């Protein structure tokens, strides 16, 4: 799949560190790094001193294909991803049909390869039909062309403790990981938003923090018991951060992600009853937001994952209770991290590279992503203008859906270019 085209990125700062250098990409790899490289046969691109990062990797993307092509397709979703600086996304399994067989995961993987905007690593369902009853053929999905390593019933929690234990054990045979959507179902019947002062006044059924934390505590203990790998999806509460910190302190193999929206927004927004702010797990309180930022800064939370969840207009233009859960996020993820973590000085760009590229690639076992920016490494890169500011306009999104909670927000930094195996997928902030 290597491309014989050669690019010379002029005046870029890897990880935002040091003096600008030139980086040459040849045959899908980084061929040369240095000051004042000659252009030669390469196509030159002026990076204007921008920050060069390894291509971003999303562990949690809903591409909706097959089944809800009116909300998103692999083509539109991966284009949005590329524009957001991503070179790989993990496509969640809650499609129709569910990605619970080798056939479906291979279909999604091929659609991603054919679209060519970024690599698509399908996530396999843990249980058949996401029903939480019978384990899907995890090994067959692992052995398929899609080489599935991340398994999740996301949207649903694997709530049966015995089944969760078996799944954690079973995936050890092929170095898989169970990515848990931690939501105790009996504690969240009809839940609409964070349970607290706002839900009490708004008359919306509460989604209590304990429903997330109880599952995380249980799963950490299970993962320790069977000595397997657990990944916790979209951590949203201060208590969850504490539990994961505790589990990591024990040396257990537990990783966790946080979404950009949980790093920035609070449940005060539900007061508008505008379902664009309805998401699962729900937006929480200021205290939770602060704990999540702290957890991401100190490494308790390994990575940022978008939980990009596009929805057709009619599924969002409804009453709060009837509207779908979810927000888009691929094109705004890096900017939200810049605003909440980089600008306040809580993460350096090198740490951003760890949390948005290296860690998710490692958790998903993507060998060609999240690599150092060094000679010989795969040329999966993204170039960021750290001084840009832009206002989010849903109509400008490459996603087929418009349900961004950041509409009208002015955000810092902009992805200027994205390279997938040395070939630009985005140049000048536009599809290449």
């Amino acid at each position, binding site marked *: 799949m290597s491309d014989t085209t050669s690019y010379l990125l002029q005046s870029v700062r890897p990880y935002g560190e040091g003096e600008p250098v030139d980086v040459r990409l040849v045959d899908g790899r980084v061929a040369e790094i240095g000051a004042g490289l000659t252009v030669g046969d390469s196509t030159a691109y002026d990076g204007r001193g921008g920050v060069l990062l390894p291509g971003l990797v999303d562990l949690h993307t809903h591409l909706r294909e097959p089944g809800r092509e009116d909300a998103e397709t692999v083509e539109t979703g991966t284009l949005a991803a590329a524009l957001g600086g991503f070179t790989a996304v993990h496509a969640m399994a809650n499609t129709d049909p569910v990605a619970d067989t080798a056939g479906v995961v291979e279909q999604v993987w091929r659609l991603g390869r054919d679209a060519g905007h970024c690599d698509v690593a399908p996530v396999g369902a843990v249980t058949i039909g996401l029903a939480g009853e019978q384990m899907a053929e995890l090994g067959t999905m692992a052995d398929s062309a899609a080489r599935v390593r991340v398994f999740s019933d996301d949207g649903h929690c694997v709530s049966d403790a015995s089944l969760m234990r078996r799944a954690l054990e079973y995936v050890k045979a092929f170095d898989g990981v169970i990515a848990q959507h931690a939501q105790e179902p009996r504690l969240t019947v009809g839940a609409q938003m964070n349970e607290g002062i706002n839900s009490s006044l708004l*008359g919306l059924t509460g989604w209590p923090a304990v429903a997330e934390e109880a599952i995380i505590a249980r799963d950490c203990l299970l993962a320790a018991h069977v000595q397997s790998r657990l990944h916790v999806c979209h951590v949203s509460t201060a208590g969850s951060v504490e539990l994961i910190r505790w589990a990591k302190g024990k040396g257990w193999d537990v990783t966790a992600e946080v979404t950009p929206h949980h790093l920035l927004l609070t449940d005060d927004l539900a007061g508008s009853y505008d379902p664009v702010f309805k998401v699962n797990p729900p937006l929480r309180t200021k205290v939770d937001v602060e704990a999540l930022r702290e957890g991401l800064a100190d490494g308790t939370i390994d990575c940022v994952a978008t939980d990009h969840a596009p929805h057709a207009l009619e599924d969002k233009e409804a*009453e709060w209770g009837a509207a779908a859960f979810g927000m888009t996020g691929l094109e705004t993820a890096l900017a939200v991290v810049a605003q909440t973590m980089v600008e306040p000085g809580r993460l350096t760009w090198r740490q951003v590279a760890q949390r948005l590229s290296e860690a998710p690639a490692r958790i998903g076992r993507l060998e060609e992503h999240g690599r150092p920016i060094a000679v010989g490494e795969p040329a999966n890169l993204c170039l960021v203008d750290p001084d840009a500011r832009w206002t989010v306009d849903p109509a400008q999104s490459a996603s087929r859906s418009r349900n961004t909670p950041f509409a009208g927000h002015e955000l810092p930094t902009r992805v200027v270019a994205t390279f997938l195996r040395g070939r630009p997928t985005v140049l000048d902030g536009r599809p290449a």
Partner: protein
Amino acid sequence: MKRHLLSAADLTLEDATLVLDTATELAQLTERATVKKLPTLRGRTVVNLFFEDSTRTRTSFELAAKRLSADVINFSAKGSSVSKGETLKDTALTLEAMGSDAVVVRHSWSGAPVNLSRFIRGSVINAGDGTHEHPTQALLDAYTMRQRLGRVEGLRVTIVGDILHSRVARSNVLLLSTLGADVTLVAPPTLLPTGVDAWPCAVSYDLDAVLPKSDVVMMLRVQRERMGAAYFPSTREYSRRYGLDVRRAQALSDDAIVMHPGPMVRGMEIAAEVADGLRSTIVDQVANGVSVRMAVLYLLLGGAEPAIGSDDVDAGGLR
């Protein structure tokens, strides 16, 4: 006043007092008149948009609008609008096309009137949304208290029952605190929402301790289905601990009144003898509902002709 009445929190002390005063005057006017109709809202259209059945509330609004000579359209849209494939927005646009001046909306989802108000040029009046609010019920309750006890400020009001699922409780707590009453909620802990400690009221689990110190006791309906979801073990235990039976009612001070927004479950949260007793305002509440809703419609829509004839209520300036 704001253009819409979506929450009791939309009403300032001045607004709420104006509604109650206007309701009093309208009630006197219609009582005196031989014809029970005022020309105030002639040519105006009020739509009753009920996504959830409620004959009593719909009838109350309909009577109120008709007594002000408004044209009334009853638009029944039972069930979720989404299940029919029509969004709330579609419905709103239809109502706009009909030229409605006010939409009275009852909906099973909390917040639906707020959503609707984004698409509607006229006024939206919340006639009960899910487990959120029912502001005109709170207004008629305050009106009834004033009628029976002469004031609202300083009254000790005890609200008993399923606070968690009650839109009446939410609106009452907000309105009564605006009007200066001291509200205490009494319920089993399972039927109080997480976060209630931030509400402008006190909370107790002990009805017997609160009753002697109450000027008003408002009993809320408790649905038997809540038992299935383990909010309490049995209706018998609920009645024993939180029901207003004859023995408990004797603990009330002589002037205290007993209210219920209806529909009642006699024998569950309130004994029949208490509901029908002299303290009970339950029949007054129904009658007062019409006067208060007339006042709300009048103040939000601003009649073409003065309804009351007093200069301080300037219809044109109330929009």
